[in-house]
């Protein structure tokens, strides 16, 4: 089981769209995938039309594996389940750590509900908090969407500094360019410069696309309703690259 976090300390950069579509691409490639919506705005769940269960909303169900697994909902797509947001994720890091570090215990717990996942995708809230720090520790990779503008460049540097200060493994960071407008010179120049400074930028680039914006209307990943669009191709390519690493 690999944990891939989708994270940005700045909002509106295409983070949730990436989490939603990459989880979909992972499931399509045959990996049993769980998408966890940790962002209290609940956008990832919204795109998959998954309502959080009313009964579960007020419970601390990260307390143990069994409660957590009860919150899991099937998506409309094979191999893909979703944990919707609007929940207390106070203990999520504890849960995640347990999932990662005592795999045999986890296996037992999950066997009880006849389940296991190959990939867990986390859609993280856009801030740096204790939760995000713990997510960084337990994740195998942290995907960071970066719009190629000066402001985003600065935010990304803040994140790498945070990793250094907290002794986190910077190799986990996998930045990629998001909402890219090829016709803008500024985007091109920023991308060239950043790629030179940081070799870890993924080759896959997500374009600015009205197809992605329409996700809110379709309430589905762009990969499901506009398979052959440029945006879909870009997500597929990006997932293949990530998949090659995990």
């Amino acid at each position, binding site marked *: 089981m690999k944990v891939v976090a989708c994270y940005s300390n700045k909002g509106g950069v295409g983070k949730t769209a990436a989490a939603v579509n990459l989880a979909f691409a992972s499931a399509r490639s045959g990996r*049993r995938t769980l998408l966890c919506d940790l962002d209290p705005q609940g956008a990832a769940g919204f795109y*998959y*039309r*998954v*309502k959080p*269960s009313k009964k579960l909303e007020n419970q601390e169900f990260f307390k143990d594996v069994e409660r957590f*697994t*009860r*919150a*899991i*909902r*099937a998506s*409309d797509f*094979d*191999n*893909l*389940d979703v944990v919707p947001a609007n929940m207390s994720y106070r203990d999520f890091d504890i849960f995640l750590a347990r999932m990662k570090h005592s795999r045999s215990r986890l296996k037992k717990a999950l066997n*009880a*509900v*006849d*389940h296991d996942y190959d990939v867990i995708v986390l859609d993280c809230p856009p801030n740096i908090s204790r939760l995000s720090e713990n997510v960084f520790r337990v994740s195998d990779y942290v995907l960071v969407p970066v719009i190629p503008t000066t402001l985003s460049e600065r935010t990304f540097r803040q994140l790498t500094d945070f990793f250094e200060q907290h002794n986190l493994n910077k190799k986990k960071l996998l930045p990629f360019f998001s909402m890219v407008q090829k016709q803008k010179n500024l985007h091109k120049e920023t991308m060239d410069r950043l790629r030179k400074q940081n070799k870890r930028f993924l080759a896959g680039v997500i374009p600015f696309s009205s197809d992605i914006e329409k996700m809110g209307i379709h*309430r589905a990943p762009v990969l499901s309703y506009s398979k052959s669009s440029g945006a879909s191709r870009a997500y597929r390519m990006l997932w293949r690259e990530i998949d090659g690493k995990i």
Partner: protein
Amino acid sequence: MRSGRSEPFQFFLNHPLPMSDESLKIGDGLTLASIGNQDTMAACLDDFGNSLKRSGRILIRYQKNLLLLKVGEPEVWTQVSAPGWRFIPQMDEGPVKSRLQDCSPIRAFQAGAENAMGIKKYVVLDDNRKTTARCTLYHLDNGERSLTFGFTQPLRGYDAEHSILRRFLEKNGASALDSHANLHAQCGFDQPMYDSKPSVEITADAPAIETANHLVATSLNVARQNEQGVSRDYDTEFLHDYRVNLRKVRSVLSLFKGVYGDEDTAHLKRQFSDIMKVTNRLRDLDVYLLAKQDLFGLLPERMQPGLEQMFSIFNKERRRELKHVIKMLHSSSYQRDMAELQEKFRSTDRLAPGPKAMTASLPFATHLIWARYSKVCRIARKIDRSTPDEEIHELRIQCKKLRYLMEFFAGLFPQRMLKDLIKPLKRLQDNLGNFNDFSVQQDSLQAFLNSYANSHRSGSVVAMAESIGALIILLRQKQAEQRAQVTQSFADFDSPEIRQQFTDVFHHGTSQ
């Protein structure tokens, strides 16, 4: 993905769902919506022995898709497999294949009649139009009969919605799939069940000739059921079963001494031996070809080309031999002879009785079995390391005869007791059978090499001789290993308890 709690629901449906539109409200904000129809042709698959039907399973093929269900189990399995497969090992990997691993890998699967099949897929949507459960209906129609069955698919985290769907289906006539005989017939697969070992009912005081007739008639009948499969070359088991049953007939004729008149016995023996002779080579070749993988596994890669060539020669020869066999099976003389033979054993007055004809079956049976058992023991107890191989072969033949006798008369003795006696006998026979197989394989490889050497240039003979020579050495080792085990296998069979049982039942007749 599957839910941890809700189980899928498999059902029959007597009439269509009451849906005039594409969607229907079924409860609390939930809608049942049609998401697709497909009309196709479908056939039910099984092997000749009806392995699936016997175990309550149904395998349906439509286009490249396979659908497997087991009556009484909620799960339904589907997978895609490229067309052209006939044996389980040839099937593409998938959940259906992995659930058919108990079927024989050398029995061909055949399709029953093609049916028109309609597949309807539904989803249960909530007020966000989120899918919360799925349901698939299959409607089969062969012109005379039709049948609808289906299954639901619960989704994780949506148990309540699945329950509502299930209640809706039940309210509309869905009943759990729990009897499968009908379903097979409805799928156009209602051919009579083939049984390779039908139980033969015999009575203790019936005259021996009546019992013998009964046994022969049954075996002849089973043998003949395999003729078509042999001719069409579906798989090698048809010929195998055909020969096993003719061998049983010959065993009755030779073991039931004095039941038929001498002249009739000799004539019948010759007739059956002539029929079987035509099939001998074909069966030998089948056995070699089935062992192909094993033999390749014995040799290092550089020696394998010689084997490859040998097997391609065997394949060619097999095609010729099969033609001979088919020619015989289709000949009017064979058809006439077989029909006459069947008739002879069906009636009681067509064959001249011998001096033992009217002996009651039970004393006749105990006498034969006791005598044969004593003979087996006599030979086996003398075996030591210096005993020639011929004696081991003789022991194999005597064990085989003993086994046949015990099985012929099985109906006269308590089943449990017979099973306990046959089990160690079977292990001994397996051991002796392997010993014999390795020996026969060496001889036939040598014979093949000799004839190859006579008809080919020396260059290719050297490579072939190297491969085959290596194989013969390996087979000799394996034969020796088997031989070394014979004493132990016999000792297991020759336990004091088993000796006592044989004496009680077949010598003193005390168990009756």
